[in-house]
């Protein structure tokens, strides 16, 4: 299918579909600290290996060992690599396992960068923040958002296997550029939503009021006259700033926020102490 191939293809649409399904289901089942997704990767491409090397035990052994090697990338992006790998494997027929390894290890790094940003960070922000926002308003219907989006992603993953197979080694250039653009646009959308999420879901009630003469000044109401949501954004920006500090971990930040919450919640009583 790619211009690099000379003989007629042995890998069928059905084979690719099968690989795509295995990729979705099996890539991470055997995840471990040594080879990470290596075991799952070998599992994923097994149908191709069987087809190509069924009658050649030596090549089969070599291929198995090769594909059990270290592999790690964003699952959604792995389909592109598996597809490209299949096309190359079909062309080389085991003659050059180093080329195959080169393809895999060359792509997995950059694809993890783009993929984790787009398919993990931004994607989850968009679907789960809106769903969680609706949940906090008591509406379960929002859970349909990640569910439907999840099926869309599954479809994209499925397609990615074929795109990888057809594009072969040109993946990084053309397709990569498109993904970069998409990531940028998605980041804009994601940041807009994140900004909105802050006043929408962070809603502390701070029980603090001053009596000046006969007028009762509620601290929070006063601050909101500058801009509503000023307390939530202050807490977030403070957290963001803390995370930039050395030695700050998300777990430590969690305890800091717990402490702040306990203090704010008891502020009225604390003030009375003085």
């Amino acid at each position, binding site marked *: 299918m790619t211009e690099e191939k000379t003989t007629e293809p042995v890998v069928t649409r059905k084979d690719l579909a099968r690989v795509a399904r295995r990729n979705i289901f099996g890539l991470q089942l055997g995840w471990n600290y040594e080879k990470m997704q290596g075991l799952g990767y070998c599992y994923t491409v097994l149908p191709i290996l069987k087809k190509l090397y069924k009658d050649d035990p030596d090549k089969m052994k070599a291929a198995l060992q090769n594909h059990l090697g270290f592999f790690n990338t964003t699952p959604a992006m792995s389909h592109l690599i598996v597809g490209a790998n299949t096309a190359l494997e079909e062309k080389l027929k085991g003659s050059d396992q180093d080329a195959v390894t080169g393809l895999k290890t060359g792509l997995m790094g950059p694809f993890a960068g783009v993929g984790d940003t787009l398919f993990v960070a931004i994607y989850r922000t968009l679907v789960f923040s809106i769903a969680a926002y609706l949940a906090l308003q008591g509406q379960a219907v929002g859970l349909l958002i990640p569910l439907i989006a999840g099926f869309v992603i599954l479809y994209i993953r499925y397609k990615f296997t074929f795109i990888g197979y057809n594009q072969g080694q040109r993946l990084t250039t053309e397709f990569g550029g498109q993904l970069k653009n998409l990531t940028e646009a998605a980041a804009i959308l994601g940041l807009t939503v994140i900004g909105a999420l802050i006043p929408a879901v962070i809603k502390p009630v701070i029980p603090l009021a001053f009596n000046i003469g006969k007028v009762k000044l509620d601290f929070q109401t006063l601050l909101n006259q500058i801009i509503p949501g000023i307390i939530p954004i202050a807490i977030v920006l403070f957290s963001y700033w803390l995370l930039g500090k050395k030695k700050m971990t998300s777990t430590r930040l969690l305890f800091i926020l717990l402490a702040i919450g306990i203090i704010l*919640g008891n502020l009225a009583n604390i003030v009375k102490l003085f």
Partner: protein
Amino acid sequence: MTLSIGLIIILTLYVGLAQIDALSAQLGLYSPLFGGMITGLLMGNITIGLLVGGTLQLMILGVATYGGASVPDYLSGSIIGTAYAILSAKGAQYGIGLAVPIGLLLTQLDVLARMSNLFFQHMADRHARTGDYRGVERANLFGIIPWTLSRMIPVFIGLFFGNSVVNLINQYMPAWLMLGLKTAGAILPALGIAILMRYLPLKKFFAFFIIGFVLMAVGGTNMTMMAVALIGLALAAIYMLFKNEFKPAPAGGSPAARTKQNDDDEEVEIDD
């Protein structure tokens, strides 16, 4: 209210299934949001489930298993936390307050599962040397066992001893802590949001973050997240429109270089 053994088993099975979802199709069953909702649904109080799950979801918004990192298990946390909240009849904040330490504790079991799988990797390596591809296949599927058990066991135990634990807590938790946890629950989503901001190109695109914030902050009763998301979509589209229309043709290799620079800006390491 008490938890029937049947319900405990169903929820235990659910968390196993959800863990497989987390590894494979990622449809969302693995999210605290679903965890809370389903527990609430089965225990007859979906609203509390949504509140516990939603808050935990927001706390973990920016946290992900990048590179195979272990993160707090707020899925199990949301199931147990929702169950405790309903059992104790003390409201969602109570459940959140309990789900957080539980989730943190269970981080360790995730590490254990990832380590156990080393065993199957080595099993597969052995089979590969003999060319036994069926063996390799089996080894990968065995990975399901550590993954699911690492979630099912704690959830089963947590639910089984639920009543006793809840009674214990009710006896000893002071009033000021309850009051404090309530406010803490309301600000904890800041955690997930702040982490996420570290992973997104905030420095380059902070303008859009501001716009989103202001729209929601001053938007009044009609403003919704979907409305802001649509505005965000429009702004992204305008950015792309301008990029297509106005971007000068790049000299060889320069766009890559420019991107690299931005990445550097944003790549702040956070230890989870």
